[in-house]
């Protein structure tokens, strides 16, 4: 059973769970994600594998409370079990030695970024990480990212930690200062869009990891489709990482809002019940 063996709140809305999943811990690669269900009536929710411990047979997932399902997930305690957990899903990140890698993470996007940063560092790259969030308490996994980075730049909207400003400012500073061979960006769609526009200006190959809406996660439904280079792709099987300069971010953001009205009603009903 997929028992929760460790739980920690990074902030009021961001929770880290370490879950028993020996086979997934063994098979997973950076970039992979899992799909889980919290309860019998639960949704299937995709979450990236932030870390794994093969010997203990556990994986680490990090979730931000954004609706009914993540709220329920955050309410689970150590000793509780997920009723369903499947993975690893998605293509693994293409990690190789390219020289200098700029890794940009926004909000909980830092969680999926962590194994990728680790991978690039282990492959012998110089890794510079830029972590961004609204304020200090929303910056997560800073120490873990530091462990695998040559340099870490922190950006907050309110200046409560690191520098005041957006992720793109931190990133541009690095690009102007030294040669960057590749960039990887994970975070809210809007942040990925603007980071991608920036790196395009400087002709830096960039990968973005997308958090599309999903149902099955195995390529069966097409809920997760995105347009990349003018072609429709399924995030769960063709991604989750794509060439950022080819992604139609506006369409992606529009699709993420596809269930807004329904979700809001559902969430209000849930909060009234609990």
């Amino acid at each position: 059973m997929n028992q929760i063996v460790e739980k920690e709140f990074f902030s009021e809305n961001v929770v880290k769970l370490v879950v028993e999943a020996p086979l997934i811990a063994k098979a997973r690669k950076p970039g992979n994600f899992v799909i889980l269900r919290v309860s019998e009536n639960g949704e299937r929710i995709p979450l990236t594998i932030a870390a794994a411990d093969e010997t203990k047979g556990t994986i680490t997932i990090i979730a931000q409370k954004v609706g009914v399902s993540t709220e329920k997930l955050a309410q689970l305690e150590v000793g509780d079990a997920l009723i369903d957990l499947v993975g690893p899903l998605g293509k693994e990140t293409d990690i190789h030695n390219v020289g200098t890698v700029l890794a940009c993470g926004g909000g909980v996007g830092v969680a999926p970024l962590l194994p990728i940063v680790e991978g690039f560092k282990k492959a012998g790259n110089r890794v510079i990480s830029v972590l961004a969030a609204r304020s200090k308490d929303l910056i997560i996994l800073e120490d873990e990212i530091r462990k695998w980075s040559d340099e870490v730049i922190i950006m907050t909207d309110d200046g409560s930690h690191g520098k005041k400003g957006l992720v793109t400012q931190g990133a541009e500073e690095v690009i102007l200062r030294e040669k960057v061979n590749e960039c990887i960006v994970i975070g809210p769609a809007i942040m990925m869009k603007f980071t991608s526009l920036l790196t395009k200006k400087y002709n830096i190959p960039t990968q973005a990891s997308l958090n599309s809406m999903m149902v099955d996660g195995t390529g069966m439904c097409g809920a997760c489709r995105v347009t990349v280079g003018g072609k429709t792709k399924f995030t769960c099987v063709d991604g989750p990482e794509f060439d950022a300069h080819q992604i139609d971010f506006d369409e992606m953001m529009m699709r993420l809002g596809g269930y807004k009205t329904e979700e809001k009603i559902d969430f209000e009903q849930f909060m009234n019940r609990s």
Partner: protein
Amino acid sequence: MTIQSEYLKERRDQEWRAELRNKLKGKERTNLPRVHMPEESPEERVKHQNLEVNTGLSKEQALVEASRCMDCANPTCIEGCPVQINIPEFIKNIEREEFALAAKTLKQTNALPAVCGRVCPQEKQCESKCFYLTKLKKEPVAIGYLERFAADWEQNSGIMDIPECAPKNGKKVATVGSGPSSLSFAGDMIKLGYEVTVFEALHEIGGVLKYGIPEFRLPNKKVDIELDVLKKMGVKFETNFIVGRTASFDQLKEEGYEGFFVGSGAGLPRFMNIPGENNNGILSSNEYLTRVNLMGANNDKNDTLVLKGKNVAVIGGGNTAMDSVRTAKRLGAERAIIVYRRSRVEMPARVEEVKHADEEGIEFMNLANPLEYFADEAGRVNKMRVQMMELGEPDSSGRRRPVPIEGSETDIDVDLVIVAVGVSPNPLIPACLPDLTVSRWGTIEVNDNMQSSIPVLFAGGDIVRGGATVILAMGDGRNAAKSMHEYLMTINK
């Protein structure tokens, strides 16, 4: 005479069947009209997603219908059945009120009779070869209804016959997927003495039977009772397990699995790649049906959501399209429209589904093809442009090819569009097995024994045929079981 026809003759010569044949004169049988399946009224059924439309024959109806069957010396109906059910024998068992034996006859060759009695396209198979139709030009015996009757009778009796299994032979085999092909394979292999594990990627067993076909056509509990029989026979089920990802084939071999059956289905939905298709409110039938059937999104107590529409268009003319459009109606659509590029007679859906859809007030926009979708500011679809078609020369499928009529474009208001234009084979397995030979379309290539280019790997169902049918998938599973057994016995000599 072949073994099969000798066997059938022997069964037909049993005393009870000879007696039964003499009980009524031919005319007394052929003068009986074909039974009508009792149904919930259209007004009532469109209010419930989970209310089965066909309510099943009563005992009296079944007895009369069974007596229509002439118990022909040359039962052509069997030729039309992909798993060669001994049709006259099961029907005659119904006629003499031996319902348990009727069910048992079905289960000799069909592991899921309660399912097949509901979803097989009988009008294209057994019933199309019935003596009544071919010789008398009358309506055929309602073989499908009778199959369902016998299977349901057994299920309702509470005493399910658990087929006997040979002593364990110490060998382990696995299936990839838990759709009908894998289930029939598992049923046959466990009977032969193998240890069988069914691996399924989703959190439910059953493949399309669970995530695709709606409850109003095939109640989940009918599937569950059949699954329970397999469990009692000793088949192990592992959900949330993606073969090739959660564990590789090599890992499973190390665990002692000696043979694999891939029944991973044709899961990948096709889209038309026309402008505006990625707008919100346009989804594949797989997504729509999965949200409702597997995740229960029609019920407030479940967290999964599904978009509802007032004006719903469903693109396509197959079973999937019918299931989607009828689901939309049940979820409150005012207009639920089938948009299909050929005419009604070419529709691949079961005839009964089209009839039911019609009764439920589904609109049919035939000879029409979508060209483009338009959306409101929030990106939600609000209009579709369709072009009218006419039928030209027959194409490779033998059906007349639809040809666009210039200048015939019209716009219709829609707020939900479901695309049901077919599926492609699930690429997961081929992607993790470079030595596996696949066709241009991504289907796994197999020989007549359902064996792939990797000798320990057999395959069947939609991953081999592209989108096909439940019964063909089950037939493949049976053939694969037979061949894999022979293969594993020879290599281990």
